[in-house]
Structures are given as structure tokens and as C-alpha cells.
């Protein structure tokens, strides 16, 4: 989509591209290709390498330690990271907690928590969802009870991604039962090593462990663990959703995976011609190419709006729905392109180009469910964007 970029942005891209390729250790690129769940160590290593260039917190404001890039520059940076098979940055610390603390945290909280996120020394997890509050966050039942000098938390958090290697949790808890559900929630910082925090792994459909259930049993946190004002947590939690609307589109990962899959399909197979010699597969690739370009162009529209100082238009609400469907479509195609080799468990010895796809494909069923199931997104689009009632 060169036509969307200025000459300066193209120069920026060239610079970023060569820097990333020079910085990225080959083993990290290989691990990123090989599967969807990376270890903390691998993620931290890449985080630290980026931080050395001031690029880890690339979408934070400059005063919080960000590089001061425009939305389009961030898009380019993320595209180049994905294209080089760089490990993803931890969603929670960098994308979620950082901006939230920067916007609503106290001076002391920012000073204490932001630097180690940037450097990759501390990892966070998100304690929003619960067994009875998935897409319906307002029904959160975890409670925070005021005590002398702090709060006592009790409850159970579900689907806590990366919880098993996180140092800290950003936790939504009910501080007031007297008001309507959304109004009585507050945001807390919880040390994952605090007494009363107990974690149970959840093995997902792909056989991997990235998700956990976290039990909070009389967990005591200090006064300084509260983010912003009491009972205002709902607003803070929503802030991010509006702020990072294009992130869920996962457009760069999709583009990178699509290009890898294309290269694999273009290569000769054992005892056979390339998959791409088959016109039916060519057609499917072309149709996906069109969908992917549509998503890229839509994300760029949103970012151009931001870059030119306008509020993102209504198209910002659709990128999660479209992007998640596309992620699934790509891995569904991958399963067919790879064929019987894709039906084995990932542990089996496999060609590097084949490794990782099955695990990704299975785990990908989650993307139309998490971060607000697509059904919820569509209702939001219909009601808020289109005004149906």
C-alpha cells in the first residue's frame, strides 16, 4: 500500500527495516515462526533489545518514554517487526497497562511501574474476565473490601493470559454494590506473588498453556494499589478499547502469515508440484489477498485520520470483526495447503515452514471470541455506529 505513504514514511520504513533485521536474533525469529505461545524469556529478550533503541513502548506518548511516532510510523514499525518474525510484545504490559497507568495512574505508580514494562523486566497480566463475566464485564464479582491501609480482594479471574509468568496483574474488582453494575468497579494493581493469589493452568484446544485461572483469596493490597479514583474502574477499562481500536485487527501478523503461506504453497512438494499450481488454491489465495488488502486499507484509513488530527471515523469499529475472521481464514487455508502433515501434534518433528501452523490454527478459534466476541462487536456496530434501535 505504498500509495498511502509519504516519502518520509518510506524512508522511515527503510531505516526501521534494516534496524530490526540487524537486531533480531535468528533463534527468536525461528521460535516466533514455530508457535503461538512464547516464553517470558524470549519475549523479554526482544523487549529489551527494542528498548535499547527506545522502541519497546512505541505507541506510548513521548513523555512516558515512547519514541514520539505518528500512528502511521507505528503501523510501519509493527509491520516491519511482524515481517521479520519478531516476537510479539506482551499485550498486557506494553499495550494495556502502560497507557492506562500513564492516563490514570499516580505519579508514584508511573515512576514505579512504567520503566520495567518498557525494559521488559516486569510482565503483567489482565484480571478482567471471570467465569461469569466473559463478554459481559459489568458482571464482575471479584470484590475489593476497604481495610485499614488498603484493600482485600476476593474472587476468581478467568482466561488470564500469561498469568503464569506475570509479575503483576491489573485487576477489575467491585468496590461498591449499591450502584448500577458498571459504576461500582475499581482497578487495582496486584502482585502475583502476594499471599492468596493462586493460579491454575488452563490447557487450550491447541494443547498449549498460555491461559490460567487465578484465584484471589483474601489478597491484601495497599492504598497505592488503586489506580485512579475508586468506583471509576469501568471507565478506565473502556478507555483502552477506544484508544487501541486497530490493534485487535492483527493486520501485520495476518499479512506476515499470509506471505509465509504463499511462499510455502509456491514451493515444490515432496513428489508433487506446488500447491499454487492448482487454480482452486490460487483463487483462494487471491480472494484472501483482497480481504487482507481491504483490512490493511481500513486500518490505514483510521490511522491517517489520527495522523491528520481527526477522530477515527466509524470504520474503526469494524476492524476487530474483519481482522479476526481473516486470521481464521488464513489458518484454515494453511491447514488445507499443508494437508496431512497439519493433522499431527506439534511435537512431531516437522519442517520449519510447517511447524506452528496447526497450533496457531487451533488457538485462532479464540480470536472471534475474546476481546468482546464478534457477536457483541456487531451489536455495538449496529447500535452505536449505525444507530439501530
Amino acid at each position, binding site marked *: 500500500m505504498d500509495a498511502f505513504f509519504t516519502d518520509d514514511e518510506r524512508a522511515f520504513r527503510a531505516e526501521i527495516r534494516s534496524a530490526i533485521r540487524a537486531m533480531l536474533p535468528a533463534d527468536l525469529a525461528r521460535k516466533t515462526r514455530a508457535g503461538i505461545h512464547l516464553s517470558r524469556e524470549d519475549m523479554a529478550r526482544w523487549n529489551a533489545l527494542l528498548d535499547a533503541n527506545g522502541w519497546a513502548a512505541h505507541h506510548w506518548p513521548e513523555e512516558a518514554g515512547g519514541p514520539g511516532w505518528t500512528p502511521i510510523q507505528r503501523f510501519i514499525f509493527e509491520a516491519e517487526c511482524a*515481517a521479520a518474525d519478531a516476537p510479539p510484545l506482551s499485550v498486557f504490559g506494553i499495550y494495556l497497562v502502560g497507557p492506562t497507568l500513564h492516563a490514570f495512574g499516580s505519579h508514584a505508580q508511573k515512576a514505579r511501574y512504567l520503566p520495567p514494562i518498557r525494559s521488559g523486566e516486569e510482565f503483567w497480566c489482565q484480571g478482567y474476565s471471570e467465569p461469569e463475566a466473559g463478554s459481559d464485564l459489568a458482571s464482575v464479582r471479584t470484590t475489593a473490601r476497604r481495610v485499614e491501609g488498603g484493600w482485600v480482594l476476593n474472587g476468581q479471574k478467568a482466561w488470564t493470559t500469561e498469568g503464569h509468568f506475570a509479575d503483576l496483574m491489573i485487576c477489575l474488582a467491585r468496590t461498591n454494590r449499591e450502584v448500577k453494575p458498571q459504576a461500582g468497579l475499581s482497578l487495582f494493581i496486584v502482585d502475583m506473588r502476594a499471599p492468596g493469589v493462586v493460579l491454575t493452568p488452563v490447557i487450550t484446544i491447541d494443547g498449549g498453556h498460555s491461559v490460567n485461572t487465578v484465584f484471589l483469596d483474601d489478597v491484601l493490597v495497599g492504598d497505592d494499589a488503586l489506580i485512579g479514583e475508586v468506583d471509576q474502574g469501568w471507565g478506565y477499562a473502556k478507555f483502552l478499547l477506544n484508544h487501541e481500536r486497530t490493534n485487535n485487527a492483527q493486520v501485520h501478523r495476518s*499479512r506476515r502469515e499470509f506471505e509465509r503461506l504463499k511462499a510455502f504453497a509456491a514451493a515444490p512438494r515432496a513428489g508433487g508440484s506446488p500447491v499454487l499450481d492448482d487454480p482452486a488454491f490460487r483463487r483462494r489465495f487471491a480472494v484472501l489477498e483482497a480481504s487482507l488488502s481491504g483490512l490493511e486499507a481500513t486500518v490505514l484509513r483510521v490511522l491517517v485520520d489520527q495522523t491528520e488530527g481527526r477522530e477515527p471515523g466509524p470504520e474503526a469499529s469494524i476492524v476487530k470483526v474483519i481482522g479476526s475472521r481473516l486470521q481464521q481464514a488464513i489458518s484454515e487455508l494453511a491447514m488445507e495447503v499443508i494437508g496431512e502433515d497439519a493433522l499431527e501434534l506439534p511435537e512431531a518433528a516437522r519442517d520449519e515452514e510447517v511447524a506452528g501452523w496447526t497450533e496457531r490454527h487451533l488457538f485462532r478459534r479464540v480470536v472471534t471470541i475474546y476481546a468482546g466476541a464478534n457477536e457483541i462487536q456487531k451489536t455495538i456496530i449496529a447500535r452505536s455506529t449505525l444507530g439501530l434501535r
Partner: protein
Amino acid sequence: MRRSPDQRDDDRLLREGARRFLEETCPWTPCPPDEAAQDAARREMAQLGWFGLGLPEALGGAGADALQALAIIEEAGRVLLRRSLAADVLVAPRLMRDVGGALASLAPGLAAGTVRFALVPENPGTGIGATRTGSGLRLDGRSALALDAGRATHWLVEAGGHSPNGAMLLCVEAHPAVVEMRRLIDGRTGAVLTFDGLALPAEAVLATGHEAVARMAEIRDCAVAALVADSYGALAAGLDLTVGYLNQRRQFGQTLGSFQAVQHLMADAFCDLETLRSLLLWTAAALDGEPAERRRAARTAKVTLGREGLAAASRLIQASGGIAMTEEYRVGHVYKRLQVAAGLHGGTEAQIRELATATLSPEGRPDDEASAA
């Protein structure tokens, strides 16, 4: 090159002015207005400067870019204007700017509205051939469907099968005898032209060989961009109308718009529609860029028009129910408009095939997509 249609105030003024004029002067009606009324509206458009807009200043124009021309075409799509503006607002001004010569001498007439162009694509099956004769050329063969060719004063004709050998881009004065009129399902009028040795002067040739092939590709991409702009406008207006209807019409004791199934149908339509608009903006930006990206953008937009665009139009009908099945209601016409757009300048499967060729060859996607690994 600009990358958004909202960056400049004059863009907004142009669009709002166009919308107001079209809604007042050419509001949608189930039956097409008569020819005289359509001609009168077209004269007013000339007075508003729409046909001079894209001409370079040297030819007395305003030097507008593709985004502005497409904004007018999109607005015309909103009222389902029965005349296509693609040739006069987008294609002819570009060609006058870039090719100049005899064509440029038609610029004042274009701006004044007395010269009216139509794009005449070659029918890939039957072909059009131009051969040099002593005094000029002769033209043989049969065109594909050409929008409004029966009303144009001049035809921009593709000849020679897109291979540099014998390819020619021609500007031909309209010749009623060769016109077979076609009434299209969306109330517009097209024509198929059959040339049987039509004699042309040498000045009719705008480009030959490789340049002709390149120009024809550019014209087709512009034509596609115009179809997409028009379709998006038609769909967006159809969506607005449908939302209003759904919020008012009640069934089973509640508004149709309150049913989750209807809401999701409309959300899907909206996703389709906004994707189409994104690709329109990419294509608009790419029209002035590298030919390879321009072609890729146009093909992608056309594929999306034929798939997601038509699907969105179907969803508007489905959500509206019976009323959208009637000729009196606008939404059915939006569907037919999209159906025509999907079929012109290469159907959806042909576009997919070309997109596959463009993106699946080893050097398919250029470096810009960060796919160099």
C-alpha cells in the same frame, strides 16, 4: 498525492455542494427522468464546473485530483444518477492532461458540457481492430458494453487486444449508425458498438503500442475506481435509508431494528461497505502512483465490489423485507446498480484471476508490504 478525502476544507465543500445539488436537482425516482431533464441537469453540472475540475490549469481547469473527481462520482451514486460521470469527470480530463494533442483541443467543449465522452472497452471475445489506411484508419470489430455510449459525442475506444502489437487508443467521434442501445437492469443505458470498416482520420489515434497498452490499463483502472465510488455511494445511501426504515417499521411488537438478527445483518453490511470504501481510497491514491500498485488496487476494489459489495446490497434487501422487492423502493435499485457495476469492465472471476496472477508470481507483491523475508 493525498491519502484522505477529509484533509482539506475544499474537499468538504465540494462534496457537500455536490450532494446538495444532486439531491435537489436529480433526486432518485423509481423511473429514470426523461432525456431532456437529464440533459438539463448535465448542463447545470457543467456550469458547476464538474467537467473542468480535473483539467490542468493550462487547459482552463482546476487541476483537481482523483479523490475529488471520485467524490463527485460517489455522490452521483448516492442518488443513483442514470448518467455515468466517469468518462467526463475522471478519465477525459486525465487524458487531456497527460496525452494532450488533438484531444486537448476538446477541453473547452468538455468543460462547457458540449463534448461528452464515453469509454468503449474492447470485447475480449470479439475484439476491435484498427488498421492504417492511406488516409487514416479503419475500425472493425465489436465493443463490450459501453455505458452511455449512445449519448456521447466522442468515444474513447480500445483497440488491438491489449498487446503492444497493434494496440491503439482512439478518440472517435460518435457515429449513431454503429450503436446498438442496451437498456440496463438498473435503469441506465449502455450500448454495444459494431464497427464494420468505419473510416477514421489519423488524428483519432491517441496512443499506439506500449503507450496505448499502458493508457488502456490506466483508463480501465480509472473506470473501475469510478464504478467503486458510484457503488459505495449507492450503498451508503441505501444503508442510511434502511436504518431509518428499520427503526420505524414494527413487527412482533418491536421495531425491526431492535432484532439482534437484523442488527447483525446490518453490521455485516456495514463491514462490507466500509471495506469497499477503504479500497476506494487506496485506489484513488494509487491512481497517480506506480502502475503495478494502481492495477492491484483497482482489481482488489473490483473483486470486493463483486463480492462484499453485492453481498451488502443483498443484506439491505433482506433486512428491509418485502418493500425492497418493489420497483418503487430505492434499495432494490441499489442492488441492481451493484450488479451492473460488478459485471462491467471484467466480471469478478476475471478480476480474481488477474489478482492471482499479479500477487502469486514470485515477484508478485512489491517490497512495500514488508514481505521481504
